[in-house]
């Protein structure tokens, strides 16, 4: 005698195929990318209250013209040499020992004609309106690289770690809070040794 069944069961065998199809679609369209780039702070619009007098020797001028040529400290410079020049300038530590500006950790030439102390040293970047953006980024990259090289050196000396790695760990939201608190101080300490002072003048039109 035929047994009464309820509704016949739907064959679920093709479910996997359908799911796979969707899965492959999403796999292909997914881009798990995090953008990366050079972080910069723009100067605020309001000028500072009092005019700060900066000694000429503490300023490292970089000029980019519209052909992408580089003038560093009034000398035509190849882009590849910019980093070494910037490091030499920042790390100079020209102030005599005993003066308040004396830089105890600098390893530069201590040329009194160049920057007194890394915390006083300023890099001034000026570019033309027709400078290609690629060149500008390369210059920015080299200058940031100069700072990073010096900061890495000091971080290695003080903490036996690279500054860039410490900073990346600090900025990574997956790092546990306790580790980040500890890193924050160290990162700040290194940043204070070599503060990034990169001034960007308004562009020239000629």
């Amino acid at each position: 005698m035929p047994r009464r069944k309820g509704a016949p069961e739907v064959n679920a065998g093709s479910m996997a195929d359908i799911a796979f199809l969707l899965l492959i679609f999403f796999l292909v369209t997914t881009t798990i990318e995090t953008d990366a780039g050079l972080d910069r702070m723009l100067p605020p619009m309001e000028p500072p209250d009092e005019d700060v007098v900066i000694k000429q020797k503490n300023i490292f001028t970089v000029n980019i013209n519209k052909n992408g040529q580089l003038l560093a400290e009034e000398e035509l410079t190849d882009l590849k040499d910019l980093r070494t020049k910037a490091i030499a300038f920042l790390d100079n530590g020209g102030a005599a020992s005993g003066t308040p500006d004396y830089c105890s950790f600098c390893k530069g030439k201590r040329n009194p004609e160049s920057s007194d102390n890394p915390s006083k040293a300023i890099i001034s970047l000026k570019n033309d309106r027709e400078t290609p953006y690629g060149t500008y980024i390369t210059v920015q990259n080299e200058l940031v690289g100069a700072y990073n090289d010096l900061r890495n050196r000091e971080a290695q000396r003080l903490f036996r770690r690279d500054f860039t790695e410490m900073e990346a760990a600090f900025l990574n939201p997956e790092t546990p809070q306790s580790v980040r608190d500890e890193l924050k101080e160290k990162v700040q300490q290194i940043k204070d040794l070599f503060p990034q002072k990169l001034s960007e003048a308004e562009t020239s039109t000629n």
Partner: protein
Amino acid sequence: MSKFNKKKDGDLPAVSTASLPDIVFMLLFFFMTVTVMKDSTLKVENTLPNASEVKKLEKKDRIIYLYVGKPTREYQKVFGTESKIQLNDKFADVSDVGSYILQERAKKAQELQNVLTTALKVDKNANMGIISDIKQELRKVNALKVNYTTYEGDAFRNLQ
């Protein structure tokens, strides 16, 4: 009763694939949730320059994007070949940047409004003039944190 005696004892049972759809669905849901569909189609050429000293931009909700570059070929007839700014889906003037930033900032949650970063996605063949103008506009609305978005790579390749 012979039904129950078909199988020999010791035979390995076939692996059940009944849970396969579940597993696949699990993966599917994972990818569905992490997928971010591109929200604006690019109307400008956007080959970013390379840089080696990059920092990662975490937390997408704190970023306002600006695109700059030559209009792509289909738009060149109308907009010419001079570098243009793209905000959301539209071409815009330098003077619109400020209000766009303010508008985007107002959309974000209160506690994020002070920590926003402006990501400048600029084609490497653009000129600095337009970038300087944008920077001036950003300073006017006090959006001082900028990120020049780049690819990770050798910076000297930009010069070719």
